[in-house]
């Protein structure tokens, strides 16, 4: 009951009001009050903190939560959409026309959020759209899209997975990540904090970060906008005491009631008696306070990003400029790389879809010989193919889907003592060469060959694509048969004959060697019974010809000795 900060548990959050908890709370509070604060009749809400810290089970890992609050998410989502030229976000928001997001409430469009320019002109949240337009005629109004917000939030959660193994979507605009385990890897708290903040800024989001030992405290501190960073549990209560109850995101009626009682900060709240607080406002809010202070465990759902990457880039208008489309593809590849980086995987296949307003989407598939995640590598392959891609219509959206994620294979590099340093890197491997060739001329056009233990000439070998799991199973010992021709015709060609003697290019062939009889194949119903001869043609070529033994006695040409 009294363990502070249980480790986050995947799965459903604990039911907020179980009977046992309700009955238990005053008892626990009473016992502690008896220990520590004999002067008070009623146990106070904050009474058990010192004891809780001391009661942490030995060896339990202290948790640290990084909260990202996105107060301007509806606005940020719209702003990201408008930069459809595939460029990085504009450096200053001033370049954009003043914008506000509107939401329909009871049939009236009201301002939900306004950007700095609009606010400066007096546009306030809660105004009707027409009032806002009267104030600022140049104002651009955007309809709020919950779907886009959710997609953006999920995208961000996936992006944040590179910093922590535990990311959680806490609310419609709050993300939490557990960072105690990542501090060492990312060079300390400050460096990690800066890295996340910078990344969020580059992605075009306005984010309020906060760090605290419990997830709820981190959320509340983030909402206060103070960018607090509390590592130590002993500093938690003083920091929370100063918070206004408006940061708790409690229902408006409750906040009003509390304010009416003169309770305006979390500190005021904590001074209230536990029993009375529960009776008046419900156990739910008491539990929330206990969780924030670390008296109660606060398990969270872990965000699991999808196994395969799929991302869209929508544009506000149709695009024909191939350079711009390539930029968009590059941006998608960058986020794809981030996605794979978080999961430490790579993929062998990618598929780009270019959507048009009319007609089916144009697809472009890329393949790699080995699992790969590097955006620059994929971009290079894309560049080779994109040159020859025919787009029948202007493009309105681009989608990137990746194939099955695969574990990356590490390669051992050669330790080069010879030649200049860096020379080794410039040379590609055969797989890179094959990928480049396949990207331009197609999968079926680049092949490797191997031998098959088989006496029938056309079954004695096979060709394989280099992209599949290619294994070279060369027979150890070359089979002991007569000389075979270096050139093989794809299909035996019928030769005209003159009184039993084959004719090639208008001239009778002269037999040099043979016959060699190759026979049977009853096991796969493609049996042969042929007599093969080596023959010399008039033009100096040596030919490999055969005659079927059983059927007609026509002559066929099967290869040249080259």
């Amino acid at each position: 009951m009294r363990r502070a900060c249980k480790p986050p548990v995947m799965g459903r959050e604990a039911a907020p009001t179980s009977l046992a908890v309700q009955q238990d709370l005053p008892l626990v509070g009473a016992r502690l009050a008896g220990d520590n604060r004999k002067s008070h009749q009623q146990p106070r809400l904050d009474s058990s903190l010192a004891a809780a810290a001391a009661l942490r089970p030995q060896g339990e890992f202290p948790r640290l939560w990084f909260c990202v609050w996105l107060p301007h998410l509806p606005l940020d989502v719209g702003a990201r959409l408008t930069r459809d030229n595939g460029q990085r976000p504009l450096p200053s928001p001033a370049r954009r026309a003043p914008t506000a997001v509107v939401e329909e409430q009871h049939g009236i469009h009201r301002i939900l959020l306004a950007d700095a320019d609009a606010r400066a002109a007096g546009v306030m949240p809660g105004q009707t759209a027409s009032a806002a337009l009267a104030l600022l005629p140049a104002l651009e109004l955007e309809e709020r899209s919950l779907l886009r917000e959710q997609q953006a939030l999920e995208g961000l959660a996936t992006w944040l997975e590179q910093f922590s193994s535990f990311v959680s979507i806490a609310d419609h605009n709050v993300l939490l990540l557990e960072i105690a385990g990542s501090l060492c890897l990312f060079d300390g708290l400050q460096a990690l904090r800066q890295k996340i903040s910078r990344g969020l800024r580059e992605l075009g989001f306005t984010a309020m970060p906060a760090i605290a030992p419990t997830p709820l405290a981190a959320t509340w501190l983030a909402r206060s906008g103070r960018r607090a960073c509390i590592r130590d549990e002993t500093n938690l209560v003083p920091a929370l005491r100063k918070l206004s109850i408006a940061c708790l995101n409690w229902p408006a009626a409750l906040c009003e009631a509390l304010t009416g009682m003169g309770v305006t900060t979390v500190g005021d709240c904590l001074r209230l008696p536990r029993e009375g607080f529960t009776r008046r406002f419900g156990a739910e809010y008491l539990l929330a306070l206990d969780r924030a202070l670390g008296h109660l465990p606060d398990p969270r759902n872990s965000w699991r990003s999808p196994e395969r990457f799929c991302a869209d880039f929508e544009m506000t208008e149709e695009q024909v400029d191939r350079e711009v489309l390539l930029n968009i593809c590059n941006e998608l590849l960058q986020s794809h790389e981030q996605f794979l980086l978080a999961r430490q995987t790579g993929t062998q296949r990618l598929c780009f879809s270019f959507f048009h307003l009319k007609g089916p989407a144009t697809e472009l598939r890329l393949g790699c010989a080995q699992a790969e995640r590097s955006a620059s590598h994929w971009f290079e392959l894309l560049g080779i193919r994109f040159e020859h891609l025919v787009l029948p219509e202007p493009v309105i959206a681009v989608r990137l889907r990746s194939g099955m994620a695969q574990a990356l294979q590490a390669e051992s590099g050669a330790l080069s003592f010879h030649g200049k340093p860096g020379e080794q890197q410039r040379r590609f491997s055969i797989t890179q060469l094959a990928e480049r060739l396949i990207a331009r001329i197609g999968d079926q056009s680049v092949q490797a060959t191997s031998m098959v233990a088989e006496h029938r000439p056309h079954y004695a070998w096979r060709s394989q694509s280099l992209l599949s799991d290619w294994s070279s199973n060369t027979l150890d010992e070359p089979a002991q048969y007569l000389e075979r021709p270096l050139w093989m015709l794809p299909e035996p060609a019928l030769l005209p004959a003159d009184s039993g003697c084959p004719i090639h290019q208008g001239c009778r062939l002269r037999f040099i060697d043979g016959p060699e009889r190759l026979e049977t194949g009853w096991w796969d119903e493609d049996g042969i019974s042929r007599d093969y001869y080596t023959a010399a043609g008039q033009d100096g070529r040596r030919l490999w010809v055969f005659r079927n033994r059983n059927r007609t006695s026509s002559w066929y040409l099967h290869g040249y000795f080259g």
Partner: protein
Amino acid sequence: MSSSLDKLLANPRVWRGRDQARQKAGLATGYPDLDRHLPGGGWPPASLTEILTAHYGIGELRLLMPALARLSTASPQHDFTEPGWIAWVAPPFQPYPPALQQCGIDLSRMLIVRPKNASEILWSAEQALSSGTCAAVLLWPETLDDQASRRLQLAAEKGRSWAIAFRPLAARQQNSAAALRLELHPEGTSHSSGQGTRVHILKSRGGRPTVLSSLI
């Protein structure tokens, strides 16, 4: 020394006999007669060789087999990573693996590329040559003008790879940047004469044109 002489010597069209001494050791062809007539004692490494024939199948592959077999199995001197690959770009027929194995080629290091058009043939060959992974690239271009042959020659130098282009006899009239150009003729056109192939060295950088009879 006078500046006019320097200027003359700097002219790329002036060929100096001294250069021959610096010629890199060639790749032994497996035919001692041919080796004797090639500068460096073999196929010119890291450059383009052209083989002109009237038809495919008159012995042009057999001429190359001993050298290719050595390339595909031995680890090359210039690199310590792996033996080189042999790329076949747009072969006119299927190179038959059992026969190649009889000649001693390592099949696990063969790459067959079948581009769809003339420009893709040259592009693929250039990629394979300059990648540095292929010890030899055999190509059957539909056309090969002076500029394209120069590109192949440069790619071969860059990737330290041996390019072999097979072309029809009509290409003899065209200029080419190849380091070595050979013409193959079947020996004797009547049935009674013996089998054999005559090799005519048309151009050999650092060497001189010759005709060799009954080589193969």
